[in-house]
């Protein structure tokens, strides 16, 4: 009785009526749509923003090679001040510890060190860079862990480190400011009044997280510790494993070695942090999953409210059209026909609101991408879930009004004015 073409006819007719109904009640329909749109917008917006951030964090974190991990006093990402006490009371990682570590470690193909601070008023002749520049102390491996290369001149050598030489590498931002028309190699710049000889410049890396990655000066770590050390100075040790297979072993060795060097008693937890790409991503996703959950719960509430709005509007719509329902029933509409008609209307309303929400959400999320200067991501899966949820809301909250409409008595409905 309800063949496919009958259903199709019915749905086409329902669709037509839905458009009519929405056109006649523009404001009412828009207000209803708005609820759904806001709910979907909040999910999609947050998801797009998080996707975008995640992809940017992942690409940003690729500064370390894949088989590299970093040992430091503080965790790489801290959320709030929770547990700060625990980290603050740790001993700093100092240069002798690093030297001993480097000498004794067998597994890594490379061990390097870095520590940074910031420097203002870096000068070359009459030119001064007022804004602060990141000043990095490192050794021959440091630029590798920063995932950049020497563009001109030479790298810092072990000799430079041993001899505590006043030499430096410049990032391209610093080159742009101090040497717009000159070759910087061999020139002397002043950092906090000290002379440093420029031995090399590094390749331009561009921006990540809205900040430049080229605004730095690198000097030998020994020199850094001599001139720029303070009581908070603690070193980061980068360790590169020979291969992915030996990564875990390398890390085990490093942990054991550093515990021995720092005299951590057996049974006590490490007094240092091991940061790897995987862990950074994991930590970040722990942070984002909190936001996701929050956005999701907001959306659930918003969608629930929107659903109630839809039910309300559909009940009004049924009352408005009692006469019409009577006419349709008199000339042969079955309960199913009427049910289909009103369900279609409810689903259409919520779907339409959902689509508006998805579009706004993706747009909003991508504004975050523009702000953070990272490539935009469109969360198609969440868009799809959003629309499915809208259908469910349309059906869930539309079924009762539709059922009421389909059960109206044709005689009484015809008489209704």
């Amino acid at each position, binding site marked *: *009785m309800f*063949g496919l*073409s*009958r259903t199709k*006819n*019915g749905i*086409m*007719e329902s669709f037509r009526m839905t458009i*009519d109904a929405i056109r*006649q009640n523009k404001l009412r329909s828009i207000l209803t749509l708005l609820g759904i749109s806001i709910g979907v917008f909040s999910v999609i917006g947050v998801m797009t923003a998080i996707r975008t951030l995640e992809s940017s964090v992942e690409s940003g974190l690729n500064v370390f090679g894949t088989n590299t991990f970093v040992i430091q006093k503080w965790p790489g990402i801290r959320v709030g001040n929770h547990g700060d006490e625990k980290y603050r009371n740790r001993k700093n990682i100092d240069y002798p510890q690093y030297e001993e570590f480097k000498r004794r470690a067998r597994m890594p193909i490379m061990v390097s060190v870095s520590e940074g601070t910031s420097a203002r008023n870096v000068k070359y002749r009459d030119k001064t860079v007022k804004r602060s520049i990141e000043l990095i102390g490192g050794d021959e491996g440091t630029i590798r862990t920063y995932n950049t290369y020497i563009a001109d001149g030479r790298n810092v050598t072990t000799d430079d480190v041993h001899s505590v030489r006043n030499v430096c590498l410049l990032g391209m931002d610093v080159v742009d400011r101090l040497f717009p028309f000159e070759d910087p190699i061999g020139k002397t710049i002043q950092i906090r009044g000290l002379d440093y000889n420029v031995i090399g410049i590094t390749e331009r890396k561009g921006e990540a997280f809205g900040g430049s990655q080229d605004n730095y000066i690198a000097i030998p770590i020994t020199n850094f510790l001599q001139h720029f050390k303070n009581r908070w100075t603690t070193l980061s040790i980068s360790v590169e494993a020979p291969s992915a297979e030996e990564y875990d072993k390398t890390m085990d060795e490093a942990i054991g070695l550093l515990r021995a060097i720092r005299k951590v008693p057996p049974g006590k937890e490490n007094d240092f942090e091991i940061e790897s790409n995987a862990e950074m991503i994991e930590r970040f996703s722990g942070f984002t999953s909190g936001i996701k959950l929050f956005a999701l719960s907001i959306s659930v509430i918003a969608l629930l409210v929107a659903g109630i709005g839809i039910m309300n509007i559909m009940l009004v719509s049924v009352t408005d059209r009692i*006469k*019409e329902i*009577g*006419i*349709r*029933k*008199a*000339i*042969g*509409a*079955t*309960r*199913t*026909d009427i049910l289909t008609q009103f369900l279609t209307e409810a689903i259409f309303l919520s779907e339409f609101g959902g689509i508006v929400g998805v579009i706004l959400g993706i747009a909003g999320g991508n504004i975050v991408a523009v702000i953070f200067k990272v490539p935009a991501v469109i969360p198609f899966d969440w868009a799809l879930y959003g629309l499915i949820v809208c259908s469910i809301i349309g059906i869930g909250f539309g079924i009762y009004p539709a059922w009421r409409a389909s059960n109206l008595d*044709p*005689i009484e409905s*015809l008489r209704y004015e």
Partner: protein
Amino acid sequence: MSSLISLQNIKRHYEVGDEIVRALDGVDLTINHNEYISIMGPSGSGKSTLMNMIGCLDTPSSGKYEFEGELVHDMDDNQLASIRNRKIGFVFQTFNLLPKATALHNVEVPLIYSNIPKNQRIDKASKSLTEVGLHDRMYHRPNELSGGQRQRVAIARALVNDPSIILADEPTGNLDSKSGAEIMNILDSLYSRGNTIILVTHEEYIANHAHRIINIFDGKIKDDKIVKKK
């Protein structure tokens, strides 16, 4: 030849509070093909209930109703909807058109519910509108049409599915006399082309278009007489 409609001892009782209203209290009626019948009676006599019963909008509390061999009194809602759709054309006093739809679409609606493809629907609906002389008003909405024209759209809608009976409930009640006469002309000519027409009215001169007049009083048929020969 078997009869088109046969009602046997039809009763329809409503409970209103403690009281039982006997809207129809044992009606026996047989209607054959190509009859032109008027049902008359004062308000409250049960003629509306009888019309709803014949029109399959209502089902009897007891009794037997057979429509072209189908047992209406046993039908569920969907079967009733189907029989209304296929076999009955309604013409109401207040026209009962869909206000936002064009004349053409109004006539198309019964065909939608009987699952006829779009192109055939348009074909049939426009043919039906042409029959009632509205071929130049197909894309007008009810509010752009006069009362007489609206009622003609309703007749076109009633005819579009080639029904077995046309059930007209006070079809001229909301019309001026000139439009009313036009509508009655159309009904007369439908009858002369072989349709079966049942007219519910309380106007003597309207009822006199019919060949058989049935008077209802207190839920019972008071008299049933042939007033004209075919």
